[in-house]
Structure formats: structure tokens, C-alpha cells
């Protein structure tokens, strides 16, 4: 299991290439990468604030639950903070399991929980400066109920 909370960019390709390497019991690897998206044409960057210490603990707890519940062979979570321009990768998750259903479900579980239970907050920046904090969505909180 690897968890990294970092300001620096990551190389998703390199992470995937090394993920689960050398194990014979992995039949499925699912990866997800989240990018900074501009819905309005007015976003330049997101500034991600987090709670050092709690962030790592919260992600580890979520990842350990996924490992146990889907009997994963391995699990990876990388989440960035700081200022990220539109198009940059914010975070990625990867899950490795014997079969694809477990790998897909565990990846969705991780994403749903990271959305609402990992202590990050996003401030939007446009061409004229900061434009406000991204509000949490009711749909993201509701998504936890299916697990």
C-alpha cells in the first residue's frame, strides 16, 4: 500500500508501471486519475489546502478499509496540494486484485470516500485572482451511502 500527499506533480505512467510488479496473484489493475477541470472557461487554477497529519491518517484509514473489504493485493493513493493549473493531475488511485470487479469497486469506493472524507479544500483562481471556495456537493455525500 502506498499513500503520498505531495505538492509535486506525479508521473501516473511510472506509478502504474511499478504497481503490483512481481506478483503472480494479480489479475486486474484499475487506475483513476483526477484532473483540474474548467467548467466555465474562467478557471485558471485550483489551490488545494489540506490538514497535514489528518490527511495522511484519513487516507490510510480509507485505503486500509478498501484493502480488507475487497481483499486487494495492493492499493495506491497519491493526492496533491498547492496550486494546480487547469489540466494538471490532482490525484490518482490504483487498485490491484485477483479479479476486475473487486478492483473497479474498490477504486470507486476510494474515490467516493476521498471526495468527502479526506481533509482537502479547493479554492478557485481565475484571471483576476481568487474567486471562491468550491462547495461540497450533496451528491458526493450521498454517494457514500451505497457503501
Amino acid at each position, binding site marked *: 500500500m502506498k499513500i503520498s500527499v505531495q505538492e509535486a506533480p506525479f508521473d501516473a505512467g511510472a506509478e502504474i508501471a511499478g504497481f503490483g510488479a512481481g506478483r503472480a496473484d494479480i489479475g486486474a489493475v484499475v487506475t483513476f486519475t483526477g484532473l483540474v477541470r474548467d467548467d466555465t472557461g474562467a478557471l485558471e487554477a485550483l489551490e488545494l489546502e489540506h*490538514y497535514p497529519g489528518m490527511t495522511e*491518517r484519513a487516507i490510510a484509514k480509507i485505503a486500509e478499509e478498501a484493502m480488507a473489504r475487497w481483499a486487494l493485493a495492493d492499493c495506491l493513493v497519491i493526492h496533491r496540494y498547492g496550486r494546480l493549473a487547469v489540466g494538471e493531475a490532482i490525484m490518482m488511485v490504483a487498485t490491484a486484485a485477483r479479479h476486475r470487479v473487486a478492483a473497479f469497486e474498490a477504486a470507486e469506493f476510494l*474515490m467516493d470516500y476521498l471526495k*468527502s*472524507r479526506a*481533509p*482537502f479544500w479547493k479554492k478557485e483562481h481565475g484571471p483576476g485572482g481568487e474567486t471562491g471556495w468550491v*462547495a*461540497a456537493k450533496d451528491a458526493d455525500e450521498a454517494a457514500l451511502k451505497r457503501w
Partner: protein
Amino acid sequence: MVEVVYFAWVRERIGLPRERVETGAATVAGLVAELAAREPRYAAAFADLNALRVALDQELADFDAPLAGVREVAFFPPMTGG
């Protein structure tokens, strides 16, 4: 004494990232009432508890949770990770 930590717009409204607070409050709600009574900027930050979350020693908690033995209390808006 507890260390009180603020994030995102809570930090901006109060104007501080963290502070040491002398409190006799038994619960988080008691501490919130003490802080909100200090100054308008605190009152503004704590005006709507439905818009706030709290963590005690870096674990999510409820506003009726006891403060006994707690070293760090964090207040922040609902989280937006991912």
C-alpha cells in the same frame, strides 16, 4: 488549553490558522459558544454549524463530543478531496 486549528474559509473569516485557547468547555459545542461570543469575526465563522465540520486530534467528530483529553480541535468546511 487546546490548540484550535482553522481551515479554508473558516481560517479566512477568523484571520488565523491556529491559536491556543484556554477553555472550560466540556464539549465541542461549548467551545464553539465561547469562541463565537468573542468577536464578530468568530461569530461569522461559527454562524451556521451545519456548514462546519470538526475534528478532534485529527479524527472527525460531532459537535456534542466531549473535549476531555483532547489536544487539537480543528474546524473546517465540508471536505472537497478527489
